[in-house]
Structure formats: structure tokens, C-alpha cells
């Protein structure tokens, strides 16, 4: 299992617009990717391609979340997704 922690970059947290961008990106991959708040159990983590799961996390700007996945290409995928989370989408 590969893990990658990322800090939410968007000014008002992981809300609808950044969540939509992230969910769509996560759904591009064939393998399962989970997301959870830092400090929570891996088995409680939710589906990263589910926009409702992302919004339900209530992750604020500056808070950390953990992405998990495994298999070929997982590391590259998590790196790309972490990049999306850490971008401030409100800046555009």
C-alpha cells in the first residue's frame, strides 16, 4: 500500500469546485484510490473518486489528508492527485 499525505491548498477547503476537479482526476485511474483525514484509520478511508465523500470530509485549507493506493502506477497517480489537492483553485 502506497501512501501520500497532502495539504489542502484551496482557500475555502475541499469544496465543490476543487472536489469536482479532484474526483474526476481520481476516476481516470483503473485502480482503487482512497482518501481519509490524517490520523484516521486506513479502513475508514473513502473512495477518492466520490465527490460526496470528498465534500463530506469537511477538509479545510491547510489540513492534511492521506491518499492510499497500490499496484502499478499508483505512486505516479498519487503524486499527480496530491498536486491537485495542494493547488489553490480559488486563485484562478
Amino acid at each position: 500500500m502506497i501512501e501520500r499525505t497532502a495539504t489542502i491548498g484551496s482557500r475555502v477547503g475541499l469544496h465543490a469546485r476543487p472536489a469536482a476537479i479532484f474526483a474526476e482526476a481520481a476516476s481516470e485511474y483503473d485502480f482503487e484510490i482512497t482518501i481519509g483525514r490524517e490520523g484516521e484509520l486506513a479502513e475508514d478511508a473513502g473512495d477518492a473518486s466520490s465527490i460526496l465523500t470528498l465534500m463530506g470530509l469537511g477538509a479545510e485549507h491547510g489540513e492534511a489528508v492521506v491518499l492510499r493506493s497500490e499496484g502499478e502506477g499508483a505512486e505516479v497517480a498519487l503524486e499527480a492527485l496530491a498536486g491537485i489537492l495542494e493547488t489553490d483553485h480559488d486563485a484562478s
Partner: protein
Amino acid sequence: MQNLKGVGVSPGRIIGTIRHMPPPVAEPQTQAQRSPEIRAEEAIEELKAAAIRVHEQLKDRASRAQSDAKAVLEATALMAKDSMLLKTASKKITAGLSAESAIWEAGQNVAEQLIALGGYMAERSTDVLDVRQRIVAELRGAPAPGIPHSDTPFILVAQDLAPADTATLDPAQVLALLTSDGGPQSHTAIIARSLGLPAVVAAAGADVLRDEAEISLDGATGEIHLNPGHTERQAAEQWLAAVQLQNFDGAGATEDGYAVPLLANVGGADSARRAAELGAEGVGLFRTEFCFLERESEPSVEEQAAAYAGVFEAFAGKKVVVRTLDAGADKPLPFLTDSTEPNPALGVRGYRTDWANPGVLQRQLQAIAQAAGQSTAEVWVMAPMISTVEDSEAFAQLCADAGLKTPGVMIEVPSAALNSQHVLQPVQFASLGTNDLTQYAMAADRQLGALAALNSGWQPAVLQLVKHAVDGASVAGQCPVGVCGESAGDPAMAVVLVGFGVATLSMSARSIPAVGSVLRSVTLAQAKELAKIALNAPTAQQAQQLVRARLPILEQLGL
């Protein structure tokens, strides 16, 4: 069936076929069980298929939308096929629930989760509930909620229209609006006027008309004829001809040359440009909150300045009256207002939000000053919901601090109208917000059809308040009073307002030619006479009838 009678809120005579706004999707019976013949796997497949179809429909709508509306629709489209939502629903199906019940409950669970987070997330719960409605409608083979799609333009009939409905309203598809509920100040009325669509509200019985029936609608008199005949067709043609003749090219004035500038109510750069094209002499109400309704956080000073500059550019060298953020009540802004208030119309809204969130107003004034400094427009600034002298003094000071030379206030709270001689002392102008003024004076919710008669600007109490406000302004000295509520766009009422001493009239740009034409048909003395007649009438109906009877041009122009 008898012909129908409602309240005409946007003039125009039109004949067309009606299409009903689909009724809201009814909740499935609580815990409805799956039929024993249907296996869980089948029901789950059916649910997923319905969800995908809803996803496709919403994606399609999103592709035709612009900027912020597009972003919201894209997010909502994703919600429709959300893996977590469908997984939760599938589990419920396996446990024995029907597909409809399962998705209904799953949607409820998610919505509650979001509401618990408060703020912006809580607001998105309505999107989840909208999505579950659509999926249930799809499962039932019922029409999707929202404005029906048709190959031929139609008259839209509904109980009432919500802001969410009207956001997607396409004037190329919709000929006119007809509601069985709602009032003269409701959203239906406002959207109809801004789009130039004839509209009638509070027409009891409209909701049971046969779908695709042909009717004639008169948006001035409020009359609906079923089975329109020769008379109605002729009237509709006359209207079209008169509309084409109504080329109002000049400045607002009475027959004897007394100038009454006709200004436009706008929400942003686009509507400002259209208003300038339609001949508005300036902007009497720039509703700044429309620029920020889709935002989740306070826009920066730079962003605001850019938005304001767009409006100033459209009216270079002309007057633009900016109203500071009027958030609250039917215009909540997650970063500014509290949606849990028990009485939003009487709550911390408009200027009052400065008490709860100091700084936002200051930054807005900074942005206005910045944009004004780079434009040739004559920028005036006013605050909404001013109730006391303390309010107007404080606002005048804030404007001075920001370098804004012409502060004013809205008179919409009755206290400001009654105490106008004092409230207007610290400022340089006032604008009567007759929609809310009427609502507060008559203690009648603007949105309720049952109270439509009370929400008329012709109510004697409201006319008294208008007169009192204008009289108090002359005591305060050097304080012109304009009107920016929907009353200003009613040609007969416009004449009365001018008779009271109102200095400017601001309205939907489309109403300007009609108001200008009617104003040109009377002298100032006649306008004053009509104002006196209206003021002395004991009821709203009599006031309106007596004034309309003395303005023959209204019948000629079909207004």
C-alpha cells in the same frame, strides 16, 4: 372552465400553448420495500442506469452553462453517479428497500452529513437533494424536475418559480410566465420584467389547466382567456405593433419638459451593457451581490474592483448608483449571512451584516472607490436596510473614509421613511426600495400569492410612506429621492411618483420605453394632480383605477 384572473406584473399580450412546470418529485413511501419479484441485483442495475442517465443530462446542461453556473452543474452531475451514494443505496436495496426508497434515504444521509458541516457545505446539501429527486423521477419515468424542454416556444405555467428555476430560463423557449401563486414582488415578476416576458401571477386555477392548452395572456390586466378568439388575437397583434412603435429615444421628461432621468437596475457588466443599449440614462441600482452569489468566500478587493469597473465602463460619463452588498433573506452569501435565522427578512441583512462581519463593507467601499477612480462614470454609493440615523451617519463616515464623495441610503425599512428628515441629513441622496418597503409596511411576505393584494405598491399606506420620505428629504435639504423598486417600472405608478416629487426612476431597462412614453403624455401639474388623487384613495384598487382611468395612453399602448 371560466377564464382566469391574476395580477399582471409584466405587460404584453400573447397567445401561446402552455407547458406546466413538473410538480416536485413526491417522496417515496417511507421504507418502501422492493417488490418480491424483483431481485436485488436487478434493482441495483436499474438504479445505476437511472443514475447514469441523470449524470448525462446534467453534464449536458453544464456544457451549455457559463462560468460559475457551469461549475455548480458539473459538480452536481458528478453527484448523480457518485460511487459512495450508489454504494449506500445498493446496500439498502440488498436489505430489502425499493430502488426509489433506497436512493431517497441514501440522499438524505449524505445531505445530513453536509448540513452538519455547516457553511458552504451545508448549502450544497440542496444539490444532493435535487439529484436524488432527479434519480427518483428517472426511475419512475416521470419528467425531470425543472423547466420542460420543447421544440416550440411555450407559456410556462407553475405554482411559483424559484430563483434556481429561473436561472435556466431561456427567453427563446419561453413566451410568457403564468403562476397560480406568487405576488407582484416575487421572483417570477422580477425575472419576467428583466427578460421582457409578459407575466401574470396569483392566477388561481392556472395550475390545473390542461397541458398544451392554448391561452391568451395579458400581462398588464392579469387576464387569461381559455380558447382565445378573434378579440384576443387582434389584441395580441396590436400589442406587437405597439411594441415596435415604442422607439423611446430621448431622455425621461414630462410633456412640459420637467426632466426625470430614467435609469436601469442592473446586476453586472452584461446587464449594464444591455441597459445602455436600451437607452438607460444611467444606473439607479447596481446590485453588487449578484456578482458574488456563486462565491464561497469574500472576493478580493481587486476582483471586486474589476467587476464594478465593468459596469462603470458601460456608463462612462453617466451616473451609476452602487448599492453595497444586500446579502441575507432570499440572497444568502455563505461568507456573510446566517441561514439559520428564524426570520431572514427581519434579520441581519444588508447594511446590518457590517455589525456581525466588520471589514467586508469597508473592503467593498475600497474596491468601489478604486474602480470609480479609473472611470469617468459619476459614482454614487448607497447602503441597503438603513433603519436609523446612527446607520446613515456611520455609513456616510465609511464612505468618506474610502474617499467616496456621494453617499446615500436606501429607504426600504419603514422607520427610515417615517424618520426621513433626520435619517437623510448625513447623506446626499436616497433611493426608495418599494418592494421591501411594501412588504414591511403591509406585514406581507413578498413571495406569497395569498398576500399578493397586500404587496401592491398602490396600497394607501405605502403611498403615504413614499410621500413622507420625499417630504422629509426636502426638510433634510439637498437630498434627491429616487425610486428603484419595481414600482418605478409601472408606468401609471411612475407618473404618481413623479407627482410626489421623486427625482429619478430606476427599473428593468426593458420597462424604460413604456415608462418614458407614458410620462411624456402628462405635464408635471397633471402628475401632481394624479399623485394627490392616488394619495387620497381609501384602497389600493381605487387608487390604481382612478389613476389609470386618467391615463388613456395606457390603453393605447396595451400597458
